[in-house]
């Protein structure tokens, strides 16, 4: 199994990201930026009856941040808000399944941090 940074699964999610779109009437949306690297996203959540009906993102960033956004939004859709709040940094690392050095982890966790802040606002 390829455990390198740019393994096929990561590249696939980066080049064909899932849920990369603006939500027309989101329950909450927030920016998520890492200006040192040049990653700049907006995260969107649509919540009804305590369930995440839709999660998406727009913006630009490096492969790792975009792949993480794609994987994370895939995971969040259909979760209850309570369950979504239990998605820890550790769970995101497992989801990505790639070696994260100090410099890359900021990109990998950027959109997760955005969604964490968004979930606090619900």
């Amino acid at each position, binding site marked *: 199994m390829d455990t390198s940074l740019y393994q096929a699964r990561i*590249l696939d999610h980066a080049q064909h990201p899932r849920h990369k779109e603006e939500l027309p009437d989101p329950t909450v949306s927030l920016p998520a930026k890492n200006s040192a690297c040049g990653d700049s996203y907006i995260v969107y959540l649509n919540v009804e009856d305590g369930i995440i009906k839709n999660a998406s993102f727009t913006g*630009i960033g*490096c*492969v790792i941040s975009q792949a993480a956004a794609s994987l994370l939004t895939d995971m969040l859709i259909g979760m209850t808000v309570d369950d979504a709040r239990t998605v820890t940094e550790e769970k995101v690392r497992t989801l990505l399944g790639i070696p994260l050095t100090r410099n890359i982890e900021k990109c990998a966790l950027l959109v997760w941090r955005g969604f964490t802040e968004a979930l606090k606002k619900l």
Partner: protein
Amino acid sequence: MSIDVSNIRKQFPTLSADAGMVYLDTAATSLTPEPVLAAMDRYYRTYRANTHRGLYRSAEQATDAYEMARKKVASCIGAAPGEVVFTGGATAASNMLVYGLEQTLDLTEGDEVVTTVLEHHAMLLPVLELARRKKLVVKYAQLSEGFSVDLDDLRSLVSERTKIIAVTAASNVTGRMVDSVPGVEQAVVIRDVTARIGHMPVRIQDLGADFAFFSGHKMCGPTGIGVLYGREDLLKRLQPGFFGGGMVDDVTLDKARWCDGVERFEAGSQNIAGAIGLGAAVDFLEHLGLDAVHTHVRKLADYAFSVLGAIDGVTLYAAPSVQNVGIVSFTLDSVHPHDVAQVCADAGVAVRAGHHCALPLHKELGLSATVRASLYVFNTTEDIDALGAAVVRAHALFAAH
């Protein structure tokens, strides 16, 4: 006169320790050669003492070495020793200077600062904070062709209310040299020389500087040391902004009288080893010849332009070599700079991705980030070839197909 790169490379221990590494990030920090390390080590091992305080042999020796370093740095930039203050770095110098100017200049609401979008945050942010505190108007001169400052525009922005003109002497992103800037009597001219010094000869008066600052660690010196230059008559009037031991003539319970001279700005125990190391770095570079250093990095810049320019999708953001201190920034279509830099890193090529502490410049250019390769005395054409190969690989791996 040219430099013997293969011999020079032997003097940089990290190049031997990490054999495969291609270091193209001098604009972040340069590598440190053996003579600098040896000079610092000699201080720590054989005459470790504080400066300007003790009467014993090692204290005298430490003081002599520290003041000799000051003389060397001053001579290197064509200044007098009394115009050279040692600081913790360029950023420390800039902050200390701007704070000092705030106490010294008669600044009123509506007074003006003229600066440029080329500035590194070390120059820009202290000035912006000053403007916010004193309600000053900040004006930006336009960029001209080749990423330079439009000096006519700058001249037109200067008015009788201009109190500070702050212009870099070289961009840390595009490498563009900005030589003398026009001054006016009532305004203080500040030059950030960090990207320029140690990469070419610098004569501070030729840059029209009333004040200037730079770091030691981007010119073969150690980290944690830098210089604030102040024209003698202006430095005499500048208020210190950092207070403590060693900068006073007298202290009573309710006030203190500062020293004359540069000691006024060197409160507390100094980075003695750092200053000695910086002096040794000056020796090292002057032995190579700063004209020869500049010729070398310009030739490499030209080679980098040809290698990178031949790669599909590369856009260069770098001044023409004749006006460049040896910095080449670029983007690669459809590939985020961070990913280019990661692929480079995986291939052992050290470059930088991001805004390089120059956000206004990147915004002006319509970019969120660039990849930056910076060239110095120990770099070779093989280094550029390795960079080119990594960029080609990044293109193959990531570019939209």
